[in-house]
């Protein structure tokens, strides 16, 4: 029988007793089982934005702020809308749970229709797996394996380190990488938004850059591969050769190139928008 050390912190915020226009955030501090080892944080929500900040603390501080419930688009109202005459708006509880299991902290929102914004302080070295559907993701000063995803929101990574795998469907992706983990691939992709990545000036990498309906810009000394279609030889399979009447259609407009002598693959790609790869300081 495996001896599982399970430390579970369950937290449910209760109804705030005092009605307020801007609800007070609920806070919970989660200690790590082994603070000497880097922990990991997993947040996967539907409604709301997530901000993660790297700090000097050894535990994690989770701050949640429930947003006023908005109805279907037809009845949508702004959060600042004054209450009906003579009535005051009560703050409803923002139920979420936090669980820690062997340095892995996961945050869950029980009701996917509740919109909650999270601001989470983590130790500087923390691995992240952060995902939201309706909201943005912001990460500041965290170093580790960072896996970030949003559907309808921007992704902003500032002064991060390690390796980044980030994606957003409808939003901008802005990343400033201070230190890259050697030999670790990275990917920054969006469908409808620009991808703007600043890399350390001396980073060794093979870049794959692509914008279907935009342009690609860089100030790096990019050693472009002569044949951008790397696998052309292998790709010419028998079926096509047997069919000489077909014309070949070139759809791969990706730019392949290496910087500082080459290294792991970094992919920057968007469909609608520009790709910027900037040289950091």
């Amino acid at each position, binding site marked *: 029988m495996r001896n599982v050390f399970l430390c579970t912190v369950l937290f449910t915020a209760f109804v705030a007793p005092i009605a307020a226009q801007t609800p007070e955030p609920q806070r919970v501090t989660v200690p790590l089982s082994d603070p000497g080892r880097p922990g990991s944080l997993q947040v996967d929500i539907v409604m709301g934005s997530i901000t993660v900040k790297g700090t000097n603390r050894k535990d994690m501080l989770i701050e949640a702020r429930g947003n006023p419930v908005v109805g279907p688009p037809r009845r949508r109202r702004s959060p600042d809308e004054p209450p009906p005459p003579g009535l005051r708006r009560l703050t409803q509880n923002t139920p979420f749970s936090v669980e820690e299991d062997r340095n892995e902290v996961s945050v869950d929102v029980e009701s996917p229709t509740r919109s909650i914004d999270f601001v989470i302080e983590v130790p500087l070295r923390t691995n992240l*797996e952060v995902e939201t559907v309706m909201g943005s993701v912001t990460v500041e000063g965290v170093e580790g394996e960072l896996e970030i995803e949003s559907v309808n929101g921007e992704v902003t990574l500032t002064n991060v380190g390690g390796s980044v795998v980030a994606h957003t469907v409808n939003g901008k992706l802005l990343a400033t990488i201070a230190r890259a983990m050697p030999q670790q691939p990275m990917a920054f992709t969006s469908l409808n938004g620009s991808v703007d990545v600043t890399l350390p000036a001396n980073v060794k990498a093979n870049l794959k850059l692509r914008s279907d309906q935009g342009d690609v810009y860089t100030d790096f000394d990019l050693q472009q591969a002569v044949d951008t279609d790397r*696998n052309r030889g292998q790709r010419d399979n028998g079926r096509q050769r047997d069919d000489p009447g077909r014309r070949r259609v070139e759809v791969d407009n990706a730019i392949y190139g290496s910087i500082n002598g080459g290294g792991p693959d970094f992919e920057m790609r968007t469909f609608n928008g520009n790709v910027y790869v900037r040289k950091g300081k």
Partner: protein
Amino acid sequence: MEQDKLSRLLPDGVDPRDADELDATWQMLGAIESPAPDSERMRARIDAVIDAIDHAPGFTRTTEGRLHPTRGYVLQGLATAAMLVIGIGIGWFARSGGFASGASRPASNDATAQIAAMRAEMRDLREMVSLSLMQQQSASERLKGVTWTGQLDRPSSEVVTALLDALMHDPNVNVRLATIDALERFASQDEVRRGAILAVQQQRSPLVQIALIDFMVKTNERESVAALRRLAMDPQVNDAVRARAEWGLQQLG
């Protein structure tokens, strides 16, 4: 007496005898023996469903299928150490083979055979490392596993299967996107073409759908026409994807 009561209660024009007949029918229906719940058979059916879920590729991959990170790192470390030992071994044998070439010929042949065997073993190990990386919990490690397959000399069918599995089930969009690039070199295989057609229909990420449509056009996959037509007509599908599917159909047409 009863009959009188009944005829009074019944609406006009209804024959009390009809009511009797109806009553008899109800009595008969009540007498039909209803099957007692067979707990054993029910249990077997539940077990079968659970079994089916357990064996569904998507389920196992995202839960138990994935190696625990620490176990993965240990495996990776071991593989790296084994590679190092084999590398040193090859170097050593190459040297001793060089010395032996001047002397007896059988010794040289022996060394060459051993080098070949070690090379084969090293190739297997490289493949094993790529495959184990693709099972990691971290998206960055899985991405590494996918890109490493591009460096494999003659990858086995297991690599192709793992890439197709990642294309269908990997939870990370960027990993799925990278598998499409990695699968291009295997585009002549039926399994890969079928997998790509299946994936373009099941995929939820617009960016991956677009990359798959490009893959179809690039590999001139005319069997994908029906799937692309469905995508182009589906109002639930992202506009950019539908436009790309239309474009793909024109190219393949």
